[in-house]
């Protein structure tokens, strides 16, 4: 055993305990009294209990030493030499333990500062990007401002869809389906460039959904997932290939003209599940709490509760409870996938994520990577305990660059300094390509492409098409819409009237979670164009108010209102109403009222008579002018027949379609 230069006569310079094994298991020699407490500062932590039991000689005998590691012992922590005036304060101890020079456990080699800093910087970066993501998500809502002039066009001040614009998988999918890169999606080149430089740093450092999984794996690990079980769970598994095949399947579908892969894009999943599920659920709890506070009838409690509600309405959610049609499934899926972290850390990232696998394929060109020296590895598996990507950082196997998130945990944990990340590594112990079979790649791509016609036979945009599929204003024609819509739910989140909802099966299986307008819950605000502003792929085009309202041109219509005269109060029940006409936003109004005088039976029998008296009543009966109706659904929303409104909107006559047309004058096959 090489002579590890321990302090000449001092207290033992013991290695720190290994987290999952506890303190180094050495037994205090029986023939010596325990050293005095003042000399045992090297341990750093009073709780580990090892310092007082182990003598200096025992330490020097049993510490395994790596070459070149010796010098480190001379640093600040050589307690015996000077006559110390006062023992260090508890703060100084804490500071030294936290930020002072550290030695790698086991070997005692000094830890390299850069790696310690990088591992911490990664946590900061993850937290910051998750914070920005949530900030943008909460800001994906129109909240007015006192500072804007009345005539100022209403747009969101922040690029709330930025994470989607930077998403290379979204860009690739929509490029394959539309053969164009839409506007801001060019930003995805930034993440692409980062991947080509450093590998999947996006997954380890940036991805908010990945951070969520990282966080949940850390805070709620199963109590069985410790020690050797954790090591086993973090070894590379064959099923990690699944995400590549899934990704190729989605790219195949994109080639066939469908951006259905957005269903599993992590940013889309995060926006959809948090924006449409988690935030409204929290809001529900908040409003319930406010109701309880209001019922207290104590003015101070009510005022405090009102203030709290106002604060959250201005920052996290909006003034009124948001509802989203059929989101239970989206939320269940989120909970299930977060729960998987208890069993397999970052299960989503390893098994399913199509963006991660897309970057995994690209990371073969990365000029940054890992080198490891198997000869020096002691197979302690500490790297595996902390591994995020299950990318085989341990000894005896080759590292998998395509699976690695470049989180630096393994290099930080390695007690022997075996693992080193560097530019242009020698790749002797590295696999850069995903472990895939060419035939299966081909087969899954073809299967993805073949699925699209199969799905569309059931729901062809020109035939058998549900009248409930009312697309947001500015949406492109349905076939192109499906080429572009990635189901990211940005439009639904931003809609100020809660009008847009994720479709369940209204638009067919392929149209799952694409946006549809449900006027019963909210109508399309006449001069609002925010859904187009936030759409990252151009499924909803960035129209302006003039185009939407039809100033000097034809307005954009998303459907047409129809009356169910058997349910309408003035039509069927001799009762005045026409709220629909009041709310109709066009000028002249698309809903017009006909004045009629009709018989009405009084609700009581005449005195002494056998019949109820008949009178007449003047009512206004509403009609729709289909050439003016824009299908906004305001009439349906405000109809007092709440359950099944007497006026309802269907997508008939929508501007974007050449076939779903009512009027001859709008028909054009040009």
């Amino acid at each position, binding site marked *: 055993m090489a002579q590890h230069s321990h302090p000449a006569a001092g207290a033992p310079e013991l290695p720190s305990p290994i987290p999952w094994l506890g303190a180094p298991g050495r037994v205090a020699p029986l023939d010596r009294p325990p050293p005095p407490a003042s000399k045992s500062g090297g341990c750093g932590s009073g709780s580990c209990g090892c310092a007082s039991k182990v003598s200096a000689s025992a330490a020097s005998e049993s510490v395994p030493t790596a070459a070149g590691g010796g010098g480190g012992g001379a640093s600040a922590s050589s307690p015996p030499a000077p006559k110390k005036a006062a023992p260090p304060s508890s703060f100084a101890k804490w500071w030294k333990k936290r930020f002072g020079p550290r030695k790698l456990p086991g070997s005692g080699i000094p830890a390299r500062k850069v790696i310690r800093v990088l591992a911490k910087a990664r946590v900061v970066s993850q937290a910051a990007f998750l914070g920005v993501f949530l900030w943008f998500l909460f800001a994906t809502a*129109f*909240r*007015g*401002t*006192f*500072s*804007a*002039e*009345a*005539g*100022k066009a*209403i747009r969101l001040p922040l690029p709330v869809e930025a994470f989607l614009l930077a998403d290379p998988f979204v860009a690739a999918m929509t490029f394959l389906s539309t053969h164009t890169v839409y506007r801001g999606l060019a930003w995805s080149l930034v993440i692409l460039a980062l991947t080509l430089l450093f590998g999947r740093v996006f997954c380890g450092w940036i991805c908010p959904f990945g951070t969520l999984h990282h966080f949940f794996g850390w805070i709620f690990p199963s109590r069985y997932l410790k020690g050797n079980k954790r090591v086993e769970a973090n070894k590379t598994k064959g099923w990690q290939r699944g995400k590549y095949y899934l990704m190729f399947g989605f790219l195949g579908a994109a080639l066939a003209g469908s951006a259905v892969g957005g269903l599993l894009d992590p940013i889309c999943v995060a926006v959809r599940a948090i924006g449409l599920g988690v935030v409204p659920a929290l809001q529900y709890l908040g*409003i319930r709490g*406010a*109701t309880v506070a*209001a019922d207290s009838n104590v003015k101070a409690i009510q005022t405090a*509760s*009102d203030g709290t*509600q*106002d604060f959250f*309405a201005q920052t996290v959610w909006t*003034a*009124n*409870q948001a509802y989203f049609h059929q989101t239970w499934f989206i939320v269940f899926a989120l909970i299930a996938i977060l729960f998987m972290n208890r069993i397999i850390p970052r299960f989503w990232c390893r098994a399913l994520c199509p963006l991660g696998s897309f970057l995994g394929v690209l990371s073969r060109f990365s000029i940054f990577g890992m080198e490891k020296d198997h000869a020096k590895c002691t197979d302690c598996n500490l790297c595996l305990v902390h591994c995020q990507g299950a990318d085989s950082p341990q000894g005896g196997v080759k590292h998998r660059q395509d699976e690695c998130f470049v989180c630096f945990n393994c290099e930080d944990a390695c007690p022997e300094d075996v693992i080193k990340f560097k530019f242009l590594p020698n790749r002797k112990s590295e696999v850069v390509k995903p472990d895939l079979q060419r035939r299966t790649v081909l087969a899954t791509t073809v299967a993805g492409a073949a699925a699209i016609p199969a799905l569309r036979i059931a729901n062809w945009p020109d035939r058998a098409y549900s009248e409930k599929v009312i697309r947001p204003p500015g949406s492109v024609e349905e076939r192109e819409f499906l080429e572009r819509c990635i189901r990211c739910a940005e439009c639904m989140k931003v809609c*100020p*009237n809660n009008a847009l909802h994720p479709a369940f099966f209204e638009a067919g299986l392929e149209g799952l979670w694409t946006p549809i307008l449900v006027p019963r819950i909210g109508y399309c*605000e*006449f*001069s*609002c164009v925010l859904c187009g502003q936030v759409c990252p792929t151009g499924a909803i085009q960035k129209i302006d108010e003039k185009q939407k309202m039809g100033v000097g041109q034809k307005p954009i219509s998303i459907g047409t209102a129809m009356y169910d005269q058997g349910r309408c*109060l003035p039509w069927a029940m001799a*009762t*005045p*109403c*026409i*709220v629909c*006409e*009041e*709310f*109709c*936003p*066009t*000028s*002249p*109004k698309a809903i017009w*009222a006909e004045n009629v005088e009709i018989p009405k039976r009084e609700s009581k029998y005449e005195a002494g008579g056998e019949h109820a008296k008949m009178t007449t009543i003047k009512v*206004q009966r509403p009609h729709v002018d289909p050439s003016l109706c824009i299908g906004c659904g305001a009439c349906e929303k*405000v*109809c*007092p027949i*709440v359950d099944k409104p007497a006026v309802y909107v269907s997508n008939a006559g929508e501007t974007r379609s050449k076939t779903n047309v009512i009027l001859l004058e709008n028909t054009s096959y040009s």
Partner: protein
Amino acid sequence: MSSISRREALGRLGAAGAALGGSALLAKLAWDRGGFDVSRLESERQVRDFQVKAAEAAPVMAIAKSSTDAADLTRKAVDALGGMKRFVSRGDVVAIKPNIGWDRMPVHAANTNPLVVAELVRLAFDAGAARVVVTDASCNEPNRCFQRSGIWRATHALGATVILPAAHRFRELRMKGDVLDLWPVYTPLVNADKVINAPVAKHHNLSKYTGAMKNWYGLLGGRRNRLHQNIDVSIADLATFMRPTLTVLDATRVLLRNGPQGGNIDDAKDLHQVIASLDQVAVDAYGSTLIGEKPASVKYLAMGEERGLGKASWEQVPRVEV
């Protein structure tokens, strides 16, 4: 075979007894006997009265039409009734209720002119108000209505507290009107010392004209759409419930058709009038003439007069023109 000790036997019996007793007590406390609770309607109407005592000789209505500046007109009209100091005392919380119902710009004349509202805020502060609240329960999306009406910007700049409607600000209240009883009422409007109604005169297809009395629709939450089935009595009920300190009707620009939203610049016309009044009915009767309607055909005016809210024949009301 050994039997258990007396101590343990007593302990077990005690635990079982406590569990049974606890369940019985809980059941007693939470027992629901079923059936309906019949709400008993008392006949007396609820009123929120914010009026100040009328001075003997002062006019009831002031029509300002001698300027084209909205702020100027507003000030003149209020001054002609004795000035804001007559209505607002030092330290008062003043709620101003403009019409901010629609996502329209000032030029469309669907909402109250922001200059009129701003001038009222300024006058209230000058008269010593501690806090001036500007709010309305909008029809369209409130953020858009408040921003695009220009009222948010104009009044916030003067230090007014602009409150946007949100679910938690409505509390259920019994109004005990003819058709309106239990409704969610917008609390910022009733939790004030003084209330100024600041409507805009507009066309409305069902009620023919909308101004001061119908502006109280903005007092209600819930599904207001049912009110249309008996719109005139609803309006009368609301105006009976809410007696403002002062009504200032904005007729600087009025909507003549396609009401109450308008939407087309050609639907509105500049009139350059502001009318301050202590009589909600009279000001509406006068306002209806401005959009070319006869007060007699606006039914809720007669109802208001019947209930003693004011005079539908506005010509008989003591008034000044400035």
